[in-house]
């Protein structure tokens, strides 16, 4: 069975994949930065980020 896709569809798939890989790369860079942190720094970093994120999401969820 053969399927045909248009050049536009191919282009859209590539764009999405590149964007996904960019996002993954950013995430992996953040993961790599963890290695230089002590356990206490990791805990504190998580605490601060969670607090900021929770405040933002709390507001957005009510919009």
């Amino acid at each position, binding site marked *: 069975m053969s399927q045909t896709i248009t050049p536009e569809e191919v282009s859209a798939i590539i764009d999405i994949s590149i964007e*996904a890989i960019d996002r993954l790369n950013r995430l992996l860079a953040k*993961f790599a930065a963890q290695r230089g942190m002590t*356990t206490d720094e990791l805990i504190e970093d998580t605490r601060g*980020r969670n607090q900021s*994120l*929770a405040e*933002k*999401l709390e507001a*957005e969820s009510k919009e």
Partner: protein
Amino acid sequence: MSAVNKTLVVVVLILSLLGTACQDDQIRKAAAAANKITLTLEEIDGEKDSLLAKGKITKAQHAKLAGILLKVVKANNVFNEQVAEFKRQADAEKLTSFTPQMRDRLRELFNQVTAAFKELADDGVIPLPANIRQNLDVAILAVNGAFTVINGVLYVANNHP
């Protein structure tokens, strides 16, 4: 699952495991897993905002995702605070690994994180059209990588004290 997604699963799992391979104590692994989950939730949050800005999701969908995401953040925060408490205890008692009681408590809290995350994936992300959720799928795969690491600490370690 597409070939790209399969590749990403493998890449994320391998890198997650490599990323913690040099960490020699369970407490650090637990703290690192909580941190990875938070970093990934930030990415999901950014992607959610990006989808709204591009007009690919409605404000209602955006608010729904925010509400579900918030549950994961809160559950992960409780887990992180418990890790912090056990870290203080471990420092005071010179422990290098969790006691069985600590592991039991962390498992209980971690199950709440995974349940909230499952809700995010099932009710927040999967209902979105496949062509707009690929970046969210990637982030979900990354969280699953962190789950693999913490499961190793909380479950496998318990079988081999």
